[in-house]
């Protein structure tokens, strides 16, 4: 069964354990700047939002790649960068409308979340279950509905 990362920002304390775990898994160093998942801070509201690739169906990055360096892992649903094939042209970094494919200037290649091959370290490292790895069908439809309803203008929300 396909699983995906479920992110619940309201549970995030901004501890950055996920970034450390991701960086260590992906690059072998504890360096949040190398993490595939990022915590964005909203200091005025005192909020934190973890965000990374959603492995979207449209796969803008994969379709924009001119050399077939981003491929679908059919077991996990992740779109994975093949480092040996990536030439570093960065077209995927501007094509991804979520901003979750980044360029590593030292390596000359791009990088993104690959779900750690099906056992994501960020979810394991998160002490508050703000990041969990769940059945894709679970999807959080109720949450999306509640959030969408809140954003509707008053009159249309009542109908």
């Amino acid at each position, binding site marked *: 069964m396909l699983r995906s990362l479920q992110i619940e920002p309201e549970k995030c304390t901004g501890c950055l354990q996920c970034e450390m775990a991701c960086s260590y898994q992906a690059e072998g160093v504890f360096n949040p700047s190398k993490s595939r998942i990022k915590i964005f801070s909203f200091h005025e509201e005192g909020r934190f939002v973890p965000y990374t690739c959603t492995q979207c169906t449209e796969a803008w990055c994969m379709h*924009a790649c*001119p050399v077939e360096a981003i491929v679908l892992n059919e077991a996990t649903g992740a779109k994975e960068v093949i480092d040996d094939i990536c030439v570093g042209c960065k077209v995927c*970094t501007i094509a991804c409308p979520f901003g979750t494919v980044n360029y590593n200037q030292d390596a000359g290649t791009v990088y993104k979340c690959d779900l750690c091959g099906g056992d994501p370290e960020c979810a394991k490292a998160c002490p508050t279950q703000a990041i969990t790895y769940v059945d894709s069908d679970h999807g959080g439809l109720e949450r999306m509905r509640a959030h969408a309803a809140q954003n509707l203008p008053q009159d249309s929300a009542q109908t």
Partner: protein
Amino acid sequence: MKHVIIGAGPSGVIAAETLRKVDPTSSIIMIGDEPEPPYSRMALPYYLINKIDESGTYLRKDAAHYGNKEIDVIRDRVSKIDTKSKCLSLKNNDKVDYDKLLIATGSHPVSPPIEGIGLPGIHSCWTLEDGRNIVNRAQPGANVILMGAGFIGCIILEALALRKVNLTVIEMGDRMVPRMMDQTAGNLIKDWCKKKGVAVHTSTRVDAIEKGSGDSLKVKLDNGEVLDADLVISATGVAANIQFLEGSGLETDFGVLVNDRLQSNIPDIYAAGDVCQGKDFSTGEYTVQAIQPTAADHGRIAAMNMSGKDTAHQGCVNMNVLDTMGLISSSYGLWMGVDGGESVHLCDNDRYRYISLQFEDDILVGAQALGLTQHVGVLRGLIQTKLKLGKWKNHLLKDPTRIMEAYLANTQAIGHNAGVI
């Protein structure tokens, strides 16, 4: 159904693959006039620095890919289209008939009208063959003159510099990449190149090129200077490959004119990629966007429509990313701004960092950045979803680097905003 695609670049290949997916029983023929397997011009700069070999430029790595998908690849050039009998004439005199035809013939480098432009030692940088010629001539210590500091000129600078040649860039415009970046950014890129040892002349033209001693050339500039060159690279722009359509009845302007289904004035003929004058998301106008993401989108959408699955093209956002000797620049949409719009610029000259955002009301419509390699794609998301930024527009006017936060704050269930806890 017999689908024929002219052109074996990204648009043609993606169209062929899409057709195979959505119209499994159709016959698909793709005609390309270069000898190599379909490859990516985007990858040529990396071939020039030996980061990849020739096969690294191939669009699809598996040699059996096209055969497996029953895509018949013909290596020839189409000389004529007879739209009445729905038949193509090839250069070797073969005929190929079609039910639906896709024109994805790309573009070609434009030769500037300069005396001596046909001399040996002057090359464009467009095909793998050009790449090989440049590699041969650009030996360490050679004098190399690059005409044009547009996208292609800039992206091959690094490859040339790494080959330890003496490099001079001549650009007509008043800055580098004038069609992609504004004054501030274009001049920062120029300063960056000069700091790296490249001579850059902007607002300068090449008047003529003459034979020098031996294999060398003499390049005369409009400021009176004469430069010696072992190699001249002409990178002064590209134009759509529409010459062969003359007399076919297909309407063309800068490219093949199409509607929002990428369909030409002749119903069974479609166009995609560099050769297609398609819809621009930002302006709603029909223009040629010779960029990889547009080629990919066009290829897919044209194929859907060719197979009878009616698919509207919403328009492509013009976008570019460029690496000029390690300085990374990007631009999106209406980066030059709009009348009555608002903008914000943040610049750090010493570190070659720059970001500029253009708004119309509270919607982002264009952007440019220098030195930004993280989360840059969200600029596309903000522009293409026409996300109403609300109070985040003011936050961005104060700190334009907070683009991800602006996106997240307006799209994610954040804290109590989630309304579910």
